[in-house]
């Protein structure tokens, strides 16, 4: 098992290598998750922040991966922060009165986080107590207690990282969100496919549905409680909607031709889907309350891979009506489609940033595919990933990162890249091939 870590700062290597080794063994759930972090280029404007190891004051043994390490990882992965290595911390304050701000100014950090973990009142959980300080002004920016149940310390750590991220960037955090993906594992009979839901960093995977036939195109409902997906269990593509908590599922679309690319609207009222019953793939809008459907696109080309704008008014979709796949846009209420992507020979599978400013796509050039961000206002494409078989981009709900599928040799893996392209992370989530990631909405 090799772990590749390239860091500009070699001191960081001393800290992060054992941290990554610890991650490899600190798994919960039936599937082992492993994180590999690769810096593309240093982000000169990343905010230096020091998260002093939180003191363990609770009963029982602390987890192998500490709350502090999870917070550091989250902030670092976002590409906007440069967490200080523990080995560089000359001081380990736990309470506010122990802080000597002069020391931290000398260490050139802008922000400081201190904290501790204690048993929750009444047992059955933990309280993570923490404070965030501006080192220069010595102002306390946050003082919070996050309470979690037993076994939910990782989730608590993600909530702390979210709060710090939101306080310092003004953008809500996405660290305590979830991802869905499909895994394909070879068996004696062929392949076993599973739709899996995990934390946004790949930990705590849970199987939602398993099948001997392909599964693809998971789509989260706006309240995060359901997943729509395409299944070939009956020999042809069909769309199912499944409630995650109960496992109950319902067949939404089947019949001759393609039943594919389901997409729940952010408003929660509709689902876009692709049907080829009319003779070629077209996009339809389904009213989830009544079940009635109306056809949105009317063109002999392949029209598929619908993605909603954040206000649910527009549908972005893939169409090869111009010869090769490009992204087009049409009002969800109907009308004329207009072309969106103007750069590149092949652009498909749009995911729309929640801030409405850009879409990410899979851009093909010859045989190579990369993830690009198309700025909707400036009408410019920026390629974020090296390829060569990168696809299925999915925006984080705060528009800060993009999860996508790529190949390593002949094996499918997931990667996450910060929206500015500065930090990229590979997630190796299970034994088999992993593909089709979908990032959940923020669930409050």
């Amino acid at each position, binding site marked *: 098992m090799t772990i590749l870590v390239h860091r500009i700062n070699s001191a960081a290597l001393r800290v992060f290598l054992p941290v990554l080794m610890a991650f490899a063994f600190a798994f919960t759930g039936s599937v082992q998750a492993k994180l590999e972090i690769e810096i593309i280029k240093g982000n000169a404007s990343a905010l230096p922040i020091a998260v002093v190891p939180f003191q363990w004051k609770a009963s029982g043994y602390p987890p192998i991966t500490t709350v502090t390490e999870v917070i550091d990882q989250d902030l670092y992965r976002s590409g906007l922060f440069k967490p200080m290595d523990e080995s560089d911390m000359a001081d380990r304050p736990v309470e506010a009165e122990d802080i000597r701000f002069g020391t931290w100014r000398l260490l050139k950090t802008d922000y400081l986080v201190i904290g501790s973990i204690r048993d929750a009142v009444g047992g059955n959980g933990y309280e993570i107590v923490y404070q965030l300080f501006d080192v220069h002004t010595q102002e306390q920016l946050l003082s919070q207690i996050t309470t979690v149940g037993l076994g939910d310390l990782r989730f608590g750590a993600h909530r702390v990282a979210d709060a710090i991220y939101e306080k310092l960037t003004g953008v809500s955090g996405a660290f305590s969100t979830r991802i869905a993906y499909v895994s394909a594992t070879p068996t004696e009979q062929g392949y076993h496919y599973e739709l899996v839901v995990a934390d946004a960093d790949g930990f705590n995977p849970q199987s939602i549905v398993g099948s001997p036939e392909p599964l693809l195109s998971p789509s989260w409902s706006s309240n995060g409680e359901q997943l729509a997906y395409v299944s070939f269990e009956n020999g042809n593509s069909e769309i199912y909607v499944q409630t995650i908590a109960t496992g109950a599922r319902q067949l939404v679309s089947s019949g001759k031709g393609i039943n594919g690319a389901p997409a729940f609207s952010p408003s929660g009222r509709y689902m876009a889907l692709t049907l080829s019953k009319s003779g070629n793939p077209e996009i339809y809008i389904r009213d989830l309350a009544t079940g009635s459907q109306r056809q949105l696109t009317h063109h002999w080309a*392949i029209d598929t891979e619908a993605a909603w704008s954040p206000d649910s008014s527009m549908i972005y979709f*893939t169409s090869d009506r111009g010869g090769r796949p490009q992204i087009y846009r049409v009002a969800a209420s109907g009308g004329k489609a207009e072309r969106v992507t103007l750069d590149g020979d092949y652009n498909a599978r749009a995911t729309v940033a929640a801030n409405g400013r850009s879409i990410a796509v899979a851009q093909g050039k010859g045989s190579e595919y990369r993830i690009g961000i198309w700025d909707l206002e400036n009408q410019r494409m920026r390629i974020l990933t090296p390829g060569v078989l990168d696809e*299925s981009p999915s925006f984080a709900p705060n528009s800060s990162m993009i999860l996508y599928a790529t*190949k390593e*040799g*002949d094996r499918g893996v997931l990667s996450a890249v910060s929206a500015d392209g500065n930090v990229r992370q590979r997630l190796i989530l299970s034994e088999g091939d992993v593909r089709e990631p979908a990032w959940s909405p923020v669930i409050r």
Partner: protein
Amino acid sequence: MKIALRLLLALLVTVALAACKTTEPVQDTPEDTTPDTVAPVDEVVTAPALDPRDYTSAQSVENFDNPESLLSKRVIYFDFDQSDVKAEYRGIITAHAAYAASHSSARITLESHADERGTREYNLGLGERRGNAISGLVSAGGASGSQLDVVTYGEERPVCRVSAEDCWWQNRRVEIVYTAR
């Protein structure tokens, strides 16, 4: 005892040879002629070589497994990102069309595929477009629409999983599957 052992050995060799046989893609064109042969009386009789233009002979059901017959060719391959049916496959399609036209009980499912490059849902569409292209030609050749069905699997059912053209071309295919003959 010795004879039984020899027979067993012969059986094992035959089985081993059969296991070694691999399916090959269509490379030859329908214009290749095979000379008619007459089997000598004291040797094992094999099926006679066929005139490739004999699509609708009463024996044609058996021709499904006869490598001399176009009916035994049931995979059509495509170029990258294309759904045009290449000229080299027209004879095969005509053979199946003629068979279906003369056997009203025949039912064909065109299982359609794409290689892994490009996005999955678009590739469902690309696969279907390939199947539709073949379906159109088989209909034009005399089959009835009710005999034909197109199912697309996009890139989801590859025959190989290596990320190289050696494998990709094998996945850009439509398989002619008879659900009834």
